[in-house]
């Protein structure tokens, strides 16, 4: 199935890192592991530094368990390698997938590449923080208030 990464509209070559299912990987940890969406993430902790690729699974695109796994891997366990979505991966989920920290995708849906190129700009405003580095609206509002307050104090402080 075609593999996509950001920065390229056409599919990229699959780099051939064979991701082992978790049970096998625990026996002999390599650089790549594939998790079922019911797997416990704590088990990865000890060898997390070794990992270059974690593959998460969407058995149906309506099964959203891997979004939580992604966020915990990025945000809680601090994983910085490649995070891939496989299974039933469709372009309309891309804004969510990107926000949860996925950076590569296996999909055979037509138009996936161009959709990926546009996905980060579909929404210029987000309401909540996630695993991308977008500032949520509540934070931008506070910054704006502080900036306005500073503008008012500024001229006075200069005196």
């Amino acid at each position, binding site marked *: 199935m075609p593999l996509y990464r950001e920065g390229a509209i056409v599919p990229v070559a699959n780099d051939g890192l064979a991701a082992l299912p978790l049970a096998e990987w625990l026996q002999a940890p390599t650089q790549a592991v594939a998790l079922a969406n019911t797997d416990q993430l704590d088990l990865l902790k000890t060898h997390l530094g070794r990992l270059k690729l974690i593959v998460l699974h969407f058995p149906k*695109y*309506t*099964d*959203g*368990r891997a*979004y*939580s*796994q992604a*966020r915990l891997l990025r945000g*809680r366990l601090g994983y910085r390698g490649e995070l891939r979505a496989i299974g039933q991966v*469709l372009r*309309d*989920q891309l*804004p*969510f*997938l990107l*926000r*949860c920290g996925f950076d590569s995708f296996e999909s055979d849906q*037509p*138009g996936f590449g161009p959709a990926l190129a546009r996905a980060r700009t*579909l*929404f*210029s*405003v*987000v*309401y*909540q*923080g*996630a695993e991308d580095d977008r500032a949520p*609206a*509540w*934070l*931008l*509002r*506070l910054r704006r*208030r502080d900036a306005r307050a500073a503008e008012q104090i500024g001229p006075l402080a200069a005196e």
Partner: protein
Amino acid sequence: MPDTHFYRYDDFDRTLLAERVEQFRDQVRRRLSGELTEEQFKPLRLTNGLYLQLHAYMLRIAIPYGTLSTRQLRKLAEIARKYDRGYGHFTTRQNLQLNWIKLEDAPDAVAALAEVDMHAIQTSGNVIRNTTADHFAGAAADEIEDPRIWCEIIRQWSTLHPEFSFLPRKFKIAVTGSPNDRAAVRVHDVGLRLWRNPEGQVGFEVIVGGGLGRTPIIGKTLRAFLPKDELLAYLESVLRVYNRYGRRDNIYKARIKILVHEIGVEKMREEVEAEFASTKDSALRLDPRTIEAIAGQFAAPPLPHRPATVGAVEALKIEDRVFALWLKSNTAPHRMAGYRIVTASLKPAGAPPGDASSAQMEGVADIADAYSWGEVRVSHEQNLVLPHVAVEDLPAVYAALGRLGFAEANVGKITDIIACPGLDYCALANARSIPVAQRISNHFANLARQHDIGDLKVKISGCINACGHHHVGHIGILGVDKNGVELYQISLGGDVDFGHTALGEIIGPAVGADEIVEAVDALVATYLERRGEGERFVDTYRRIGAEPFKERVYAAV
């Protein structure tokens, strides 16, 4: 046009809304061209509020915390005229449903909604739905704190939440700021009750796993007291546990109430608190300035002092007995003496409950502009509310509502029926509910009789999904299908009042469509004969049990 006294969209909110409209427009285009299959499109359409029903698409428009400005209400009237058949139905979750929408018009309809800061985002689908509140919020005499502040905070956090857009099933949250729960928090996936602890701090009781439908369950307390600024961190923890562990193998067992039932509330609490230990001090902790900025927008309008007792009103009470009844049933105490909260009854005798034409919506907007600070609320009981009406203005409001057919003095009475759309509209239904409601309503139309019967909540659902909330009706009626024939199962004693939350008890075999009115009549007759001093129907039932009622019903039918 009066200023609004609830959350005002800023450029961030409006940009997000506009971008969502464009995303949806593109998705509809791709569906109509065949680029997207129905299977791929369905969740996208649902999370934009569009259902396919029996005859047409239905658009479910969100009315956050049931609060509308008159400008918004007028726009709804216009959209109903332009894109639908000129009427809408107010629902038990404070939304508005338009029943005859075309898919090809839906992007324009939601673009029109966006013009007045409204939307249909996440009103359907396996996502966090519209968070509902007490329809008397900000006005009720018994309020501890306005729950709508928290509904708005939850609305923003839950909108297009990237982690929780593909949950096992829908997720409904309700918030009450009063000890008298008018938001039914104990029958929601998460219910939040604001209360003041002995130290004087206001925080949330967090209730989880309530719900109606196939397996009605009353929610359990997950956390007795949660500091307000920890709300989002806690909710994120609950949702994460649900997203990860809720069942995905069977749609009838996929709600959080099933998870809580299967693992037990102690285990649920353990899981949530373990997750919360990490989220508590994250960026999810609400900045006090953020809370303040939102709370400030819900400050009450600057209501001038008006007299609590007005000669003209007292005189009219004596002259016009119906006005006196209307005052009793359709108005409620306001925080400020000199004002009342007025309910416009959308249950005129014989009418489909909860429906309003475009003309009626505009009429209510006119009244709200003149007499209620430009604000209207939608209640869970499918009525509209004018939250701040001066006592002096009650006769004028009564007359104006009367001209719209919305002044039936029946709020809380037997003809103030809650009914789901039922088999007339809904693809999920087994039986019709609206014609049953109409017949009961006509049968008990006599006002003096209704007031004698007193408070009595009749709730009708056309199928086990219980959108009519029949489980929590004093008299609950559930439509079933037996060999192609519509039958109606009766239950008694359901309630959502705090301290009395209870699920109704089925009294016996289902009765036919031509017997249901007689059955209800028999129930009422039993009550009238057996009631004690000051007892409502449900009180008598609690005292004497189902037997006497059952006997009378099955003798009659």
